[in-house]
């Protein structure tokens, strides 16, 4: 066992050294994700200067207040300057701000209509991108309008009493109760990072996750290349377990994947003000998506016969997962469940929630999901895994 681990460490060191001397590996691991992350952040995260904006509406409540907001946004002059993006919930609204697909958001929490009807009051959430001030102000104004509407209802009771519209003897009591009621609807403003730094907080992890698949996918491909070149036969002739060859290669590409993610993290944070959130959470998400990518690309390699096949199939799968997973921008709400079925989507959900200030609890589901994905892909690969290290 110890000898096997020692051999795996020797192989991992050799493999990593070779990769760090390989220009194309360096481009894949460091240059390409960095350049793409910067381009996408700058292109989609610019400041809000125009008269048109996009506001996300998350109507978790499904009641009359949401309907009222919808009508307000679609009516009059607002319809000409506001594009409304309906999203499923507050999380989706935060993500929409983070990836730049909306510049402000209104969130009607579940049960708010009922709460207002029972006079318990409630909060209407306004999410603002501090870099898109006008859009945030507009969203706040719209929300304020809704609050005012409710307040007008409250005052109408008092006026009715004053005008004697209520039966004698009841007016004094209803008016006193109305006065004693707090404002029915409160506005809660919440800044969500947006603009360049917000986009960098989204596209940094997005590109890191996207390229992790290529970085770790190079591991199985290198085993096929070593078989063609004969060095795999020499390794197989050495007094080491065959498993050490696979383990060493996996450790090497895994380490390179972590280096790649860490580099993006550092550069996007220092250079573009991105906020990735809780470091332990970032590491856990990186580990989860790396494991998923490793298992998936290994499975693909066990099905292929040549390096070209592995490369082609891996590229198709990785681009598909990236598109579905939101690496190039969030999917419409209707497709969000599809996004969360991909390792990219799961990881990005975790990264966005971390960036929005979430604690370690927000990465539990994404990490568990990716580990489950990895386990499933590994189980599929296992019966044919020996083929990868056969000389």
């Amino acid at each position, binding site marked *: 066992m110890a*000898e096997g681990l020692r*051999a795996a460490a*020797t*192989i991992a060191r*050799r493999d990593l*050294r*070779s990769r760090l*001397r*390989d220009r194309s590996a360096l481009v894949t691991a460091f240059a390409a994700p960095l350049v793409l992350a910067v381009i996408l952040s700058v292109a989609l995260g610019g400041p809000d200067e125009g008269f048109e904006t996009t506001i996300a509406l998350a109507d978790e409540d499904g009641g009359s207040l949401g309907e009222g907001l919808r009508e307000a946004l679609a009516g009059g002059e607002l319809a000409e300057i506001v594009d409304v993006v309906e999203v499923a919930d507050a999380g989706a609204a935060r993500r929409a701000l983070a990836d730049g697909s909306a510049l402000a958001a209104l969130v009607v929490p579940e049960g708010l209509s009922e709460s207002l009807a029972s006079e318990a009051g409630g909060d209407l959430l306004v999410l603002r991108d501090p870099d898109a001030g006008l859009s945030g102000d507009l969203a706040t104004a719209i929300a304020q309008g809704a609050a005012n509407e409710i307040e007008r209802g409250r005052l109408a009771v008092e006026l009715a009493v004053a005008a004697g519209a209520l039966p004698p003897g009841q007016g004094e009591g209803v008016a006193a109760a109305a006065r004693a009621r707090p404002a029915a609807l409160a506005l809660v403003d919440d800044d969500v990072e947006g603009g360049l730094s917000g986009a960098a907080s989204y596209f940094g992890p997005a590109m890191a996750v996207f390229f992790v698949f290529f970085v770790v996918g190079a591991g199985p491909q290198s085993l096929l290349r070593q*078989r063609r*070149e*004969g*060095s*795999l*036969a*020499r*390794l*197989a*002739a*050495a*007094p*080491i377990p065959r498993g050490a060859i696979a383990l060493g290669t996996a450790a090497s590409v895994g380490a390179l994947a972590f280096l790649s993610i860490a580099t993006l993290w550092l550069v996007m944070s220092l250079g573009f003000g991105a906020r990735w959130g809780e470091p332990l959470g970032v590491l856990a998400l990186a580990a989860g998506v790396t494991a998923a990518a490793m298992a998936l690309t290994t499975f693909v390699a066990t099905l292929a016969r040549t390096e070209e096949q592995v490369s082609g199939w891996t590229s198709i799968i990785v681009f598909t997962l990236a598109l579905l997973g939101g690496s190039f921008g969030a999917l419409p709400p209707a497709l969000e469940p599809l996004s969360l079925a991909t390792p990219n989507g799961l990881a990005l959900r975790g990264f966005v929630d971390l960036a929005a200030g979430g604690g370690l609890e927000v990465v539990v589901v994404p990490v568990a999901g990716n580990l489950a994905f990895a386990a499933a892909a590994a189980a599929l690969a296992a019966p044919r895994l020996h083929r990868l290290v056969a*000389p």
Partner: protein
Amino acid sequence: MSASSAPAGPPGPSRPARARGTQATTGPEVVLEAAGLRRAFGDLTAVDGVDVRIAPGEAYGLLGPNGAGKTTTISMLCGLLEPDDGAVRVAGHDLAREPAAAKSAIGYVPQEIALYPDLTARENLAFFGRLYGLRGRALAGRIDAVLDIIGLAPRADDRVGTYSGGMKRRVNIGAGLLHEPRLVVLDEPTVGVDPQSRHAILESVAALSAEGTAILYTSHYMEEVERLCDRVGIIDHGRMIAEGTRRELLAELGEADRLDLVVDGDAGDVAEACRGIAGVVDAAAADREVTLLVRHGRARLAEVVATVASAGATLTSVELVEPDLEAVFLALTGRALRDDG
């Protein structure tokens, strides 16, 4: 590494009875002992009941055309491929039961340049040395020693990707010698190298043998095997069809000489026509070359020249060659050694 393939089938009609040389190795002095090796790939039997025994300091040549089963045999001897049947012991260790101990006694030099071109020669050697358990000063000392043996100490810190073909071949061999194995297996180690590098490689192998290392050597180059090897095994269609010292194998030929002809015309027709000449034991054709095995060849020369003309071809050169292993192979198989068919 891909396995060799050999068409299964009965020996051809012109094939003589299987020749067997004296077993030079017996008992506890044997470094490599393989018995009854058999391996099939689907319906194709690539190796069928091969036995090999090599003593310390003995150089053993394994000869055979492409697809004869040489590489499959070597793959089984080195633990790269599990035999369907048979057993391999290396330095007293059963390869199936004690693979680590058996493999530690083998220095395998594959046919391909099995190195990492982005690493220097020293880094490559260090990597393979560590896989065999060498560490620290012992490793550094062995690397220096091997670099001296292969004559590349001045270029040790250059990346292997910048080397010539011959230099890569030398490092390829050096990587198999680091751990001072008791058996060195060299699979076509001189393919594509310049004469100077080939000479250096052969000198190194001869020195290893002289120092007591057992050598298993395969090559297409008959002269290399004749020069280096104490004993030779000839493999064809996955079977060992002859084995012995050079003298023992040549004795199988009797009084036959080898006539090498180069013709303008159909070499196949010429070979067929020559088979009808009295004293011609065998004939094979490849491209424009015809190889004849003829008893009392000098006396039959005129008849051969006339037969070439009667077959509609023009003789451009003829050479009477002393009997050699090529002639033995022709006599045993009815084919020239380098004839891929």
